């Protein structure tokens, strides 16, 4: 008897719960359509969880810096010269794909923000790309390395891809190594290791054919799982492989561990190439002169004064210099957005077109997208005298010459 009553009460409870839920969702939906006093910009980014480390390096500080710069400037400028302050809506996606999808739905459908800044990471940018497309928001996907960018642009015409793909980076590395082999500085053998995750696999898949094409011989090709702490065995194998070039497509914790452990093992390849993390400002600072000669993705042109000024502003606001790969590009992409708004207003269609076709003056210098992709990138950098300078593409203005072989650890 009692259990029947219980059941009845509970099903009533369920109905009530369903009804109250519906009203919860509805009441939130009637965002007021008042006179425009501000421009709403929203973003969902990983503040906690597995992706938080990457987002805290490349994405969040640059969003903050840009928003601060815009505020200091009196707001975002519109074509008629008026300036409107920016209202920020910010969510934490907790490094979960379902959360980031829902947060973007919320930004678009409920908060009705004017523009949405992208999340951090290749996977998450892909997860939200269909939503940006459906709601007509331009997507400035900066922190995603993908060779499929041309396909994605066809699928989602308002998506923009800023960081190139594995083939670009692997190709630049192979080109440099081939040139050095020809010059007799190093032998043609290459040892590669890669992290078993999106980035590592993308790069190593691109590197295999690139090395072959460049006439290099891959004598070691190993993959290790995310979270590996001890690289002793891999380094030993690389050392005994006879390769002068050691390449690790690694994540930051691995990069730091590889750096430390190759010192302990006195592992001294003539070319030492490490993955994400070797471009972090703390990396060069912690290693000091020992960093000299280490190669990685990215780099900067230290003669570019605007970039150097940006770096100082970044440090003043965030307490730390930006990383030397994605950060400056994140900031430049936001400058492009602001410039587009200044030129064509808040119409997202027009802004998207302007982003595709316009030429912009950013911290990178004159910037223009090709087929919605940024192609003026430093694909290979090398630490030289405490700076990570860009060495490939070698024909790009501001490129430095690689200094090889790398000196042995002291």
């Amino acid at each position: 008897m009692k259990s029947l009553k219980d059941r009845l009460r509970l099903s009533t409870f369920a109905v009530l719960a369903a009804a109250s839920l519906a009203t919860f969702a509805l009441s939130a939906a009637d965002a007021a359509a008042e006179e425009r006093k501000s421009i709403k910009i929203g973003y969902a980014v990983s503040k906690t969880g597995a992706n938080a480390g990457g987002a805290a390096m490349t994405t969040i500080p640059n969003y903050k810096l840009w928003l601060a710069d815009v505020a200091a400037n009196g707001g975002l400028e519109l074509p008629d010269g008026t300036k409107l302050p920016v209202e920020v809506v910010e969510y934490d996606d907790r490094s979960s794909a379902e959360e980031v999808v829902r947060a973007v739905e919320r930004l678009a459908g409920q908060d009705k923000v004017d523009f949405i800044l992208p999340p951090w990471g290749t996977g998450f940018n892909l997860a939200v790309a269909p939503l940006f497309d459906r709601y007509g928001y331009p997507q400035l996907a900066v922190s995603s390395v993908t060779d499929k960018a041309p396909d994605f642009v066809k699928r989602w015409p308002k998506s923009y891809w800023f960081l190139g793909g594995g083939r670009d980076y692997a190709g630049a590395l192979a080109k440099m190594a081939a040139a050095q082999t020809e010059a007799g500085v190093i032998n043609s053998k290459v040892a590669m290791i890669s992290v078993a995750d999106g980035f590592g696999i993308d790069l190593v898949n691109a590197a295999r054919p690139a090395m072959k094409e460049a006439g290099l011989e891959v004598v070691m090709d190993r993959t290790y799982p995310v979270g590996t702490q001890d690289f002793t065995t891999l380094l030993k194998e690389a050392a005994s492989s006879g390769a002068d070039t050691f390449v690790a497509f690694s994540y930051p914790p691995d990069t730091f561990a590889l750096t430390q452990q190759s010192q302990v093992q006195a592992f001294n390849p003539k070319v030492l190439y490490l993955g994400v993390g070797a471009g972090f400002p703390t990396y060069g600072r912690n290693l000091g002169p020992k960093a000299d000669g280490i190669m990685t993705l990215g780099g900067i042109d230290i003669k570019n004064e605007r970039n150097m000024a940006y770096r100082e502003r970044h440090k003043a606001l965030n307490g730390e210099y930006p990383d030397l790969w994605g950060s400056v590009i994140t900031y430049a992409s936001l400058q492009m957005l602001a410039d587009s708004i200044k030129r064509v207003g808040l119409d997202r269609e027009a802004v998207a077109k302007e982003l595709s076709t316009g030429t912009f003056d950013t911290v990178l210098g004159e910037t223009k997208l090709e087929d919605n992709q940024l192609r003026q990138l430093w694909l290979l950098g090398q630490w030289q005298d405490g700076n990570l300078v860009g060495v490939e593409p070698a024909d790009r203005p501001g490129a430095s010459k690689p200094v090889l072989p790398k000196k042995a650890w002291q």
Partner: protein
Amino acid sequence: MKTILGLAAAAIAFAGLAAAPLYLGTYGIGLMIGLIGYVTLASAWALFSGPTRFVSLATVAFFGIGAYTVSAFYESFPPLMVLGLAALIGLGVSLLVGLATLRLAGVYFVIFTFGLAELIRQLVTWYEVNITGTLGRYLFVSYGPEVVYWQLLVLCAVTFGIGYLIQRSRLGLALKMIGDDEVVAEHCGLPTARVKLALFALSSVIITLVGAIQAPRWTYIEPTIVFNPTISFLTLIMALLGGATRLWGPAVGAVPLFLLFEWLSANFPDHYSIILGLLFMAIVFVLPRGVLDFLEGLTARMKSERSRQAAGTAPEHGKGRLAEGEAK
């Protein structure tokens, strides 16, 4: 009579929820997908873990298997068949795992299931890297979030239906006995191992289907995304919070927690973790027996006060969140 009323109320609730996409915006639908997803996960989890008191952290293993099956086969087969395939694979894995592990007890089972989830994730990664040569699969489907929502809703209703039937059947009685004292149950001639295995498989298949249904939401599938251990933890916490031995318990835990997460992440993105953690601890202290038990206790108390019955006869609610009876 009252059962019929109850069923009618449930039917109305279902119809109302099914109509939700007609009046909710996209965010509303997204919210409901997440919500129903977790209600289903928590309820399916409790189907097995509630009566048997085996705390499983393998939720995400099956969830991920579902998602991966869909991403691997969605181009080759029609959607329903892919779901069927996912269910079959989930069933196979769960039977295999169940046969091997159900003799483990207590915390050993907890940790085993966690290890299992990580093992499957590592193996999938290794397979993708070494055999298919890529990591990350693209998943482009033609249907929108409403379809995902309806599929989930049906699955959710089915889960409740199964839970309801089990409670009313002889199986439910058997389960109660196993939960109370497995040794006694065995002496009474109950096939405890088979009952547990069947439940584990059932619960795992539902969880697999949740993963399979939700996967198209993410466009891009990779092991770190679909084998995210947080999913296992949240499912467990939600079910325990509501009370895992009741039919509606997991739902009563999942709904407020899910909305709370959503509200906190929107309003306190920087202090989300701290507030969440404090709330969590507060819940354990204030609602020691789960929300549902607390609510029932409250109504029972109000009633007894109203009828001015003899004081001191506190309503007995035997069930804790999960476990009672002497430790083994």
